[in-house]
Structure formats: C-alpha cells, structure tokens
C-alpha cells in the first residue's frame, strides 16, 4: 500500500458524489472531482450553474449535504477543528475582492498570519511586503483599499491570501468585476502563481488564461460537471451540446 501511494500523485482536493441543496433547489448534483497537487483547474459554465457553490464548498463557506469532500487529506465535516485547519491551507480570491476597507493594504495582509498563525508582527509584515512585491504593489502598502484601482485591489487580495502560505488557492471569477484594461495585470499575477506550482481551482471565463496554465477545464451546467478535458480539446472540440452552445456564446459571433 505504501508503494502504491508513492507512485500515485498526491490528491489535494477530492470531491465524491457531492450534493447540495438550497432549500428545495438542487444546486450540486453528484459532483466528482480529483485535483492533484500542483494541478491547475479552470471551471467554467453558464451563470447559476453552481460553479461558485462548488468551490465555496471546498473551504466550507457553503456546507454540502451529501457526499464527501477531502482537502489536503482532511475530511470536511462538522468538526470545527477540521474546518479551521482546512481554511488555513486554502486561500480564496473573490470576484469583489472583499478587502477589509478599514485596514491598510499591509494590515489586510498581516491580519490572518498574526491572528491565525500567531506570527509576530515584524515577521508578518516582512512576509506581506514580499508578497506585495510579487504582485507588484509594494509602494501602496500604507494605503487603504478604497484608494486603489480594482486591478490593484484584486492583486492585494491575492497577496493577502498568499500571506497565509496556503497549499491550495481558489479563485471565484477574479477578473469579472474589473475594467478591461485591468484584467491583464491580475491574470499575469495568477499566471505567475500557477508557474510557481500552486494548486489552483479557478472559476473564470478567460480562455487565454485557461489555455496558458490550465491542466484541465471543467464545464458545469445545472449543478453537474458535464465535461472535463484539456483546454485545447475543450475549446477546440467541445463534446457536449451544452458546452458547444456555451462556447459559441462566450466567443461571440
């Protein structure tokens, strides 16, 4: 058994027959997914198909009602210790950044390391500056989020997550609230992150990004994963009717 696990790639996130309902509404239907460590997965699909819900289940912002979710070897259940442990290892970037407006950029980045990981302020600030440099906004450290552009805010949000040194990163449409000229700076940051070997699950419709970094693309519709393929195959030869329809819509006419 030991040798078997060594040859098998390590699984970072595993969803087994995950089901979820919002009241009567069946929002996730038998979702199965294995993400290996270091893999980059892009998730796309029409609005309301359950993409956000699925990745929000991975760090328990939403609770699934049936099936099994294992993150980093820990099962997500009602055990609060497990939830805390998983949230430490999983970073998340939101569509609307969700920076803390009453804290400076630097304070945003240091808050969780200091309070969750109990790292001393000096050290946390040094780490934060390192990551702010990586996302190319070290000189804005003393500003408040409201003083930054959308693209800068999203890069701060990415840096804030990275400061917790997560092993897995979740992105929920990180560029869809941005003006077109700012999308690239955020995507570049994400590409760099992907190249550093981070395990990533990204909900996004940026095909360029998917083609550059994704190991596979997942297409969701009505709460189901209905197609999963390499980006090349998926974008050039979609198999499912609904994937074809969706791609023809986002590619325009």
């Amino acid at each position, binding site marked *: 058994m030991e040798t078997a696990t060594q040859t098998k790639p390590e699984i970072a996130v595993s969803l087994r027959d995950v089901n979820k309902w919002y009241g009567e509404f069946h929002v996730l239907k038998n979702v199965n997914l294995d993400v290996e460590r270091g893999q980059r997965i892009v998730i796309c699909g029409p609005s309301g198909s359950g993409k956000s819900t699925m990745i929000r289940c991975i760090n328990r*912002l939403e609770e699934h009602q049936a099936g099994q979710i294992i993150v980093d070897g820990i099962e997500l259940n009602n055990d609060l210790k497990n939830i805390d442990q998983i*949230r430490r290892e999983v970073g*998340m970037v939101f569509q609307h950044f*969700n920076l*803390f*407006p009453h804290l400076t950029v630097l304070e945003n980045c240091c*808050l*969780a390391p200091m309070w*969750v990981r109990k790292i001393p302020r000096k050290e946390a600030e040094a780490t934060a500056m390192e990551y702010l440099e990586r996302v190319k906004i070290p000189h804005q450290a003393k500003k408040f989020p409201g003083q930054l552009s959308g693209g800068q805010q999203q890069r701060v949000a990415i840096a804030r997550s990275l400061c*917790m040194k997560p092993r897995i990163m979740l992105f929920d449409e990180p560029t869809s609230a941005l003006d077109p000229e700012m999308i690239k700076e955020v995507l570049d940051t994400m590409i760099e992150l992907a190249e550093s070997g981070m395990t990533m699950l990204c909900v996004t419709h940026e095909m360029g990004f998917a083609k550059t970094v994704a190991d596979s693309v997942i297409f969701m519709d009505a709460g189901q994963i209905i197609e999963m393929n390499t980006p090349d195959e998926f974008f050039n030869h979609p198999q499912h009717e609904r994937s074809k329809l969706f791609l023809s819509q986002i590619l325009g006419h």
Partner: protein
Amino acid sequence: MQAFITRETLPSLPPPSTLKGPIAWMRQNLFSSVGNSIVTVVLVLGILAALIPFINWAFIKADWIGTSRDDCTSGGACWVFVYVHLKLFMVGLYPESEVWRTILVGAILVVTMAGLMIKGVPFKKYIQIFALIAFPIIAFILLSGGAFGLPHVETNFWGGLLLTLVIAIVGIVAAFPLGILLALGRRSSMPIVKAICVVFIEVWRGVPLITVLFMSSVMLPLFLPEGMEIDKLLRALVGITLFQSAYLAEVVRSGLQAIPKGQYEAANALGLTYWQGMYKVILPQALKIVIPGIVNSFISLFKDTSLVLIIGLFDLLATIQGAFASPKWLGYAIEGYLFAALVYWVFCFGMSRYSQRVERSLKTTH
C-alpha cells in the same frame, strides 16, 4: 458623416471663480430676491425681539453673588440661587470635608478623556486600558471610600451632577459590551442563543425606563432573601444598564446588517475564527457606521437619568428642584431649570460634537 480627429491636447483650466467674502455670501444666501430679503429681515427682527429681553434679564440685570435671596434686588435673574447651592447641585449631600475626592475623580476623568480625545497624545492604548480598567476601580475607591484611610461615604449621600454622571457613565460603559453581545447573539445561527437575545431585547425595549427603575427599587427586594439588601444606587445602575444594552443592541445590529456578506466570507476564508473576525473585521466597520445612533442613545440615556428621582435618588435635576422648593428660595424655579438645562446641554452637545469628530476621522475612502 464627416470623420473627426484632433491633434491638440486641451489644457486643464481652473474652475470659474465664484464670488467670495461675507458680503457676496449674504447677497447670495440672504438677499437673493425680494421675498428672501423680507424673510431675512423679519426673522432677524423676531430673534432680536425675543433675545434682547432675555439677555437683559439673564445677564445685564442679573445678580450673581450673594448669600441669600435678599441679595437679589435688581429684578433680573437671581443667580445667587445657583451660587449658594452650587455644592449641593454638584455633589449632593456628599460630606463637605470629603468633597475633594469627587473633585479628584473629576480631574482624573477630564485628564483621561483629554488624553483619549486629543490627537497626537502618545500611549493611547495604555490610556484606553487605564480608562476602562483602572479608572473605574480608582473612582469607586475614591468616591465610596472605606479603604486606604478614606472614610466610607454611603451612596445615599451621593447626589447632584456627581450622581448624574455616575449613573450615565456606568450605564454607558457597562451597556456597551453587553449591547454588542446581544446584537451578535440576535444574529447567531444557534437558535437558543438567538431566542434568549431576542426575548431579552424585546422585553427591555418594551418597558419604559421609569417602570424599570420602579421594578428595581420596589420589586427586586421582594424576590431577594430576607435580610439581604442591595444598595439602591447599584439596583438602579443594573436596571439602567440592562435597559440601555437592549437599545444599544438594536443600534449595533443595524450596523452589523450593513456590512456586506463578503466581509464575513473573506474573514472566514482567511481562517479567522468567529470572534477574531468579529473583533478585527466586522465590529470596527459596523460600529463606525452606527456612531451617530450610539451617541444618540447615549444622549437620551444621559437625559433619562433624571428619572431616578422617582426612586429617591437625588441627581442634578432633583437637587435643583429640591432647592427651589425650600421655603427660603421659593420662586426661583426658572433660574434652577435654566441652570439644569445648561449643564445637560453642555454634556450632550459635547458628546454630539465629539461623535462628529470621530466620524470624520474614521472616514476612509471606499
């Protein structure tokens, strides 16, 4: 259609200048039209007509210093009444020889508050800790005595402004954390916690303060075991604190509701626990939003403290009423009430201005 292209970049110009100065301001705002001018003149005359006799009575013809009503001869306001009773109005029946203790507490309070409010004073954090933990203990020991060689002064002797401030400050400070906990509890996902908080808040909010005070002074002793007695002031303080915390809870809750869900989610996603997220992320933002509401409820509590008269505590207003009801000073109610109004106004206006300053200084661009 004609294609269009421009090669020159337009320079940025300053905005057109508007008229400045007091004369221009008056022209624009007070005398912009015939109708406006008439309204201005009528209002100014009306205000003068009302104000001049009052100023004449209250200041010009007034008597300020003396020892008895016989010193009031000029027919204006008799401030001698206030002058003679000043000690009574400030500290009630607090023993003459011990009054310095109340003054010392007041001085420490003023210095501490100044340290907290004035920008640029260092060690704010330590001053805060002092204000919240050390000061109440020091103030209690000084006022109540019975330790360090200070003679004990029973709360029965506390009165006047001293009592008003003790009730208001204890009510405000003690109700604050309780109100926050109640607000959080009311939004809790745990049904029992939520139910307890809802019931608590709604019961206290549904009862007038005067009833609460009556209950605390008349009914509470009925439920206590024989022979056990709780200080009257303490009972009133507990009642007022619980009452105030219910109001505050609703104010704080409205602030919590205004915080976008994304803030809670970001805090959770970063691994902060519920309490960490509340303390560092949600409450600082929520409380900032509701500063006006909080101050409002504090101002109304400050004024409501005058209701303690009905359970036999003699706060500022009660001592003043007592003084002008005494045969020696009959007929000076107006002076008494004006003085009370002035003191209440100074404190309430101060709170209001301070809250505006805090609001402005907390304003970060969104």
